[in-house]
């Protein structure tokens, strides 16, 4: 069965703190951008949105709030909270009062969501820690390698996401490249796959560009004279970074965080390939509801919950970065 579902207490605190920090960043940025307005959507785009976004959403909402016969129900959401809901209902119907002893809440759905949030959180944090310095190097006027680095980051994005992930599999497998190499050197093989670490690695690898490019775009557009002015006024390299570059790159950071976190939470396939079915994320859960169990109603309810989470992040992104400064990917 699925492992790694319970979070230690410090994980909750860490996530809470980071969420507070992120909200503070957003609030500051929104206040700084006050008065700017988004231009209205162009008409063809609106039509496109209605056809391919609004309609599917309405359809999902319809499934989420109906049962197999098409009658209105909230059972699908109860099913999310308690995955044993259906069987418990049967137990209570059959056994009456006595059945209460046999009723247990099935926590797999909620746990999977929490696990997904935790994985997405780690992935976002790692991407930020790796991506910010990378973006700094890429945007540095004095770095001759900057543009090369940009290309190196773009090239893997040309490849299909599934292919990229499977490529990692052939590296990490027990009989993969790394293990073959280790064995050739006379070491014992190590199990690199089929754990959360491998899933995290795959996620970071896939989503890192979404962190790097928004930050890079903002840094690249930033007037280099501002850092020179800071140096002129007595800042050394670190102080310039801390006092000028970082505060001014906040819109890019917010974009990056949102753009990594959103696809991370909905990650599917990566856990199945690199986690070898030992771990499951919310995206996989939704997929299995639709494709394996054929339960479109519960699947839709789960999707809707996911979508609300994403909409919240999106609206944060829109508010914090009203001009889309954080790169064209948003």
């Amino acid at each position, binding site marked *: 069965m699925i492992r790694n579902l319970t979070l230690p207490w410090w994980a909750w605190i860490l996530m809470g703190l980071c969420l507070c920090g992120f909200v503070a960043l957003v609030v500051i940025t929104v206040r700084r951008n006050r008065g700017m307005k988004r231009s209205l959507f162009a008409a063809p785009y609106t039509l496109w949105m209605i056809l391919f976004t609004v309609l599917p959403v309405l359809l999902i909402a319809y499934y989420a709030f109906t049962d197999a016969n098409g009658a209105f129900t909230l059972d699908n959401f109860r099913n999310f909270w308690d995955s044993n809901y259906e069987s418990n209902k049967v137990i209570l119907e059959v056994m009456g009062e006595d059945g209460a002893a046999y009723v247990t809440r099935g926590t797999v759905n909620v746990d999977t969501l929490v696990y997904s949030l935790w994985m997405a959180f780690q992935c976002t944090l790692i991407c930020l820690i790796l991506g910010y310095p990378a973006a700094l190097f890429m945007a540095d006027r004095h770095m001759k390698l900057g543009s090369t680095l940009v290309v190196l980051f773009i090239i893997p994005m040309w490849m299909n996401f599934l292919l990229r992930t499977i490529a990692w599999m052939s590296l990490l497998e027990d009989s993969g490249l790394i293990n073959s190499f280790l064995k050739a050197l006379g070491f014992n093989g190590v199990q690199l796959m089929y754990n959360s670490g491998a899933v995290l690695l795959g996620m970071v690898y896939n989503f890192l560009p979404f962190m790097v490019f928004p930050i890079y775009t903002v840094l690249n557009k930033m*007037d280099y004279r501002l850092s*020179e*002015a800071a140096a*002129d*006024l007595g*800042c050394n390299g670190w102080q310039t970074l801390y006092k000028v570059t970082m505060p001014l790159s906040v819109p890019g950071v917010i974009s990056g965080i949102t753009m990594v976190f959103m696809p991370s939470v909905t990650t599917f396939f990566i856990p199945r390939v690199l986690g070898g079915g030992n771990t499951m994320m919310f995206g996989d859960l939704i997929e299995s509801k639709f494709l394996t169990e054929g339960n479109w109603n519960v699947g839709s309810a789960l999707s809707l919950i996911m979508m609300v989470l994403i909409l919240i992040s999106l609206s944060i992104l829109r508010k914090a970065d009203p001009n889309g400064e954080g790169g064209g990917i948003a």
Partner: protein
Amino acid sequence: MEEARLISLENVHKQFDGVTVLSDINLYIRKKEFVTLLGPSGCGKTTTLRIIGGFETADSGRVLFDGQDISGLPPYKRRVNTVFQKYALFPHLNVRDNIAFGLKIKKTPKDEIARKVDKMLDLVNLQGYGKRSVDSLSGGQQQRIAIARALVNEPEVLLLDEPLGALDLKLRKEMQLELKAMQQRLGITFLYVTHDQEEALTMSDTIVVMRGGRILQIGTPKSIYDEPKNAFVADFIGESNIFKGTMIRDELVRFCGAEFPCVDEGFGEDAPVDVVVRPEDVLLVGEDVGQVTGVVKSVLFKGVHYEMMIDAGHSIWKVHATTMQPEGSRVGLSVVPFNIHIMRPMQEEQ
């Protein structure tokens, strides 16, 4: 006066991607002096300033500050501050925090920062603007903040890169006087960059005329205006009539088909020269007594004087006078010897 030299550039060369941008720059700046680098756009003024500020390093040559070679010193260790061409104010900080930036980095006590920033806001006439965001200010106000942000650090030298370039004419004139007054009051050395000759003439103690990465002439505004070293300087500093001529012998020059007595010597005999006559130095006289004669081609009223273009056969003369001669009339032109400037012809750039 060796010891009074605060900054010296010695044989400074600089290339960008194999293109020479500065060659053989030799220049020194005395304490409390107002020095202006003057030259057309692209002549290397900004690059010179950036080398002194520490944002570029010279390929060869030395930069001395108080006699010490500072070529390898990063900007934050140099005792100079810069007012950047486009101000470069920090958009994430309000006016107050922009000005206080340098003091905070130096860990100045809070009350002292508050006092100094208030004094600066007074100095640049922006009392009460402390809490405003810098984006909400006009160009002139941003300009003043940029100056205040630099001056509050009490630098020994202030580098200013076309600080008034973005302002309209009236404001620019006002700020010129204000800056000059500020410089004299505070006793700070100013190194000022501009491509506006009038600005340079009004403000500077010393003007350095540059072209194509070279220094053409260094001198006081008066000496550069009165005795330009070559036709380019003459043309760039104020309006001029520049003619090709021949030095017949000392104190006699031939140009525009006539011989003119002058005061210059030492060019040799029958030597080709450039002759400069300022428009306001040309006298309009009767046709019969003029050294050359011509026909008035156009008359333009310029506020204080009339500007007339006079066709003297092989040459066109620009003349400024307070009285007007009607278009088409024949006039005589005369120049007193003292107002004729003879220069060696300019060597073309290699």
